[in-house]
């Protein structure tokens, strides 16, 4: 196995490890993007609500 690895630069165990890792990473990133969407849209909703309040306050004062 060691000879084979040194000859072809190919270690099946590490390849399968890397494949698993990449799969996991992709899944994680997809989840992260989802979360960023949720977080961002929540923040925007809150800010928009605050903006509406302020606009209403200005209209009220006028």
């Amino acid at each position, binding site marked *: 196995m060691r000879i084979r690895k040194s000859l*072809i630069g*190919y270690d099946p165990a590490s390849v399968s490890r890397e*494949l698993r890792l990449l799969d996991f990473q*992709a899944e994680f*990133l997809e989840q992260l*993007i989802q979360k960023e*969407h949720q977080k961002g849209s929540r923040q925007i909703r809150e*800010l*928009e609500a*605050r903006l509406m309040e302020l606009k209403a306050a200005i209209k009220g004062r006028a």
Partner: protein
Amino acid sequence: MGARRRRKYALFGWNIRACHARLARKRERIAELHAALEAVRQDYARKIDVLNAEIELLTRQIAEDSARKELTASSVFFAAESHAAEAAAARAAALEAPGAEKPHADLPPAAQNPAAEPPAAGAGAGPTDGTRRRLGDLLLEMKLVTPDQLQLAMEYQAKFGGRLGDLLVEWGFITEQQLKECVARQAPKGRLGDLLVQEKLITEEQLQQALSFQRKSGGLLGDILLALRMVEPDDLYRIIASQNNIGRIGREISFDSDMKLPEQLARELEAVVVHRYSNRYLVAVGSPLGPEQEAKIAELLGMPIEQVLATKEELEQFWAKQYNEEMMYESVRRLAERQPENSARTTITRRQYRTITVLGLLFAFGLVRDHFTTLMVLNISIQIFYFLMTVFKFFIIMFGSQRGSQFRFTPEEIAAIDERDLPVYTLLVPMYKESNVIPRLIENIESLDYPKSKLDVRLLIEQDDVEAIELLRSMKLPGYYTVLVVPDSLPKTKPKACNYGLIRAKGEYVVIYDAEDRPDPDQLKKVYLTFRALPEQYVCVQAKLNYFNSDQNLLTRWFTHEYSMWFELLLPGIMKLDVPIPLGGTSNHFKTSVLRAVDAWDPYNVTEDADLGIRLYKHGYKTAIVDSRTWEEANSKVGNWIRQRSRWIKGYMQTWLVHMRRPFKFYRELGWKGFWGFQVMVLATPMLPLLNPFYWVLLVLWYGWHMEFIPPLFPGVIYYLAAFEFLIGNFLFVYSHVAGVYWVIRDLELKKDPRFSYGLVKYALLTPIYWVLMSIAAMKAAWQLMTRPFYWEKTIHGLDAAANEADESGESGLTDHPADSRAGT
């Protein structure tokens, strides 16, 4: 399974290629996901930024609207009361009359001058009589604004800062075009002095007086006017702002900028970002920035900036708020992080602990094995050490008494200085709970013979010293004083305060004075001449210290003898021999740039002055001694004296331990002369008083009881060595004290200063009693080094004044107002 594996791993087979392709695809997918994540984040951040900006704008609008309504309500009320229409008409009539100076008699004085206007487009169209018309006057005259609108804008400007024209345009009272036309009608801006006279802030005579000072000493007119207290900083900066078309900072600043400039740039440009509007940043500046500098900041911040001029004091406050973290790093952690090998943050390193343990074990083993021989060997080593230190010290003193070991200047040489060449000089005065000496301190600084407009006096007060802060605030000090409140943090030491004060020091040279110091008036000029006469590598000049209350009691007399020997003979000798100088705690003058480059004082070292002297030598710099004295207060109470002395001795021990962490490397850095000079000055100073008591006990035991174990400890030549030290060594030490004080008295006599009399000399014969006190302090220091290495033993100052007051009132002892202090050398 075996066949499958074989196929899979087959050389040059498609399985390998397929695996590689699969890996590559997955990596591509990951990269895409990363990019997508970044895009999502940026997209939301942009949207959120826009919403935040809108919210901020609306919030600001609401606040401004409220302020405006409030002000309008009051001005309407005011107008109704005073028949505003008639008043406006009268003002308009007055404007027509030639020489009308104050058309807004009913406006608040602070708002009389609209601070600044936009750049004068077509300024050439202005009147030709040279008198500059104020923007507010012109706007009224042109009937572009009503008096109420103008008053409102001016009130707002006084409160929140900015430019009057901008405000009027922003609020829709006038258009930008109208503003430009109005500005074009103004006469070109004149010189600062003329503007101040025109505004009746100074008289013509005062201006001429300030100009004559400027011709003599150079410097900026504004600084001179502030130094002469002819104008208030607020008025001066308002006019400078107006002259440079920028705004002045308002009374109320909402310090809420989310951005700050890199500290180096901010320091270089003297600019602090204080507020963020929706479309620009408000930047407080110490002096108006040029277009290039302004563009540089705008580029960094990503938005245009509006400059507002701030006084020195205001800028310091903004700075402390904005850059607190950086300032604490500079004053506390910088040295320890950049040069850990030179910092006393760790008193004893592991390697030193190991060495001490090994030596201790060896000694214990020796005692167990053959206690007599061990003690004898120890005694022989100590006797040799004593002998070498005595001889070396005496040689240093001999060198110190030679001509040329101090820099001397005649009054004629000092008078010949062209004051215009003198650089700005920073005076750092750290103090802690010494408010009783502040009036005297100010008096002493005022008596310095140096152009005041070139002084940058920084009074460093600890945050919890409320009394001093209040007192200084109430004193209305001249413009060249800056009161800096050092934030409360550990270690709470004088070097930390000095580092804090140094950060924004403006001087080319910097000096430390204690609060009770009375430097000779010509000291700064003498130091300037010394630096000028010496090569570049001389970066520090130490003035000599002595005591103004030498005749208060026996202790102060002994202290005077010691200081006279130290500063008049020993330190000049060290300078002549070119070995490291342990600096005195005050009156050491530095080239500011070099001091910063070597990371200034070690806040963890309780004799930071001595340590700095050694570090400067390590870096290849040199120190000179100048023939100028600073008069300090000698400790007159034994307990207080022991506290102070134990701190000094502990500091010397700390300094020795710090620099001897790698003795061979240190030897290579300093050379043999520097290395042994360091041992004489820094090791012998705490060691001799520690060892003395053992030999005094042996002496008493021998002469009292002829103890038989004593003679064998001094075999052969060692006996003669010890006898030499006992008879000749002690004589030489007493003699050096006599010589030192005689030296000072003679020198003062030649200068016709009757401060000391020859009667003081005889007390030097009692110096051995003083050594007993030193030994007590040394033992206390050794104990503290192990238990509380960074603790700063406070010295009480102002005891001489207290004693004087008590004498005058017929009481004895101290008053109940002793101030404690970290200060002292």
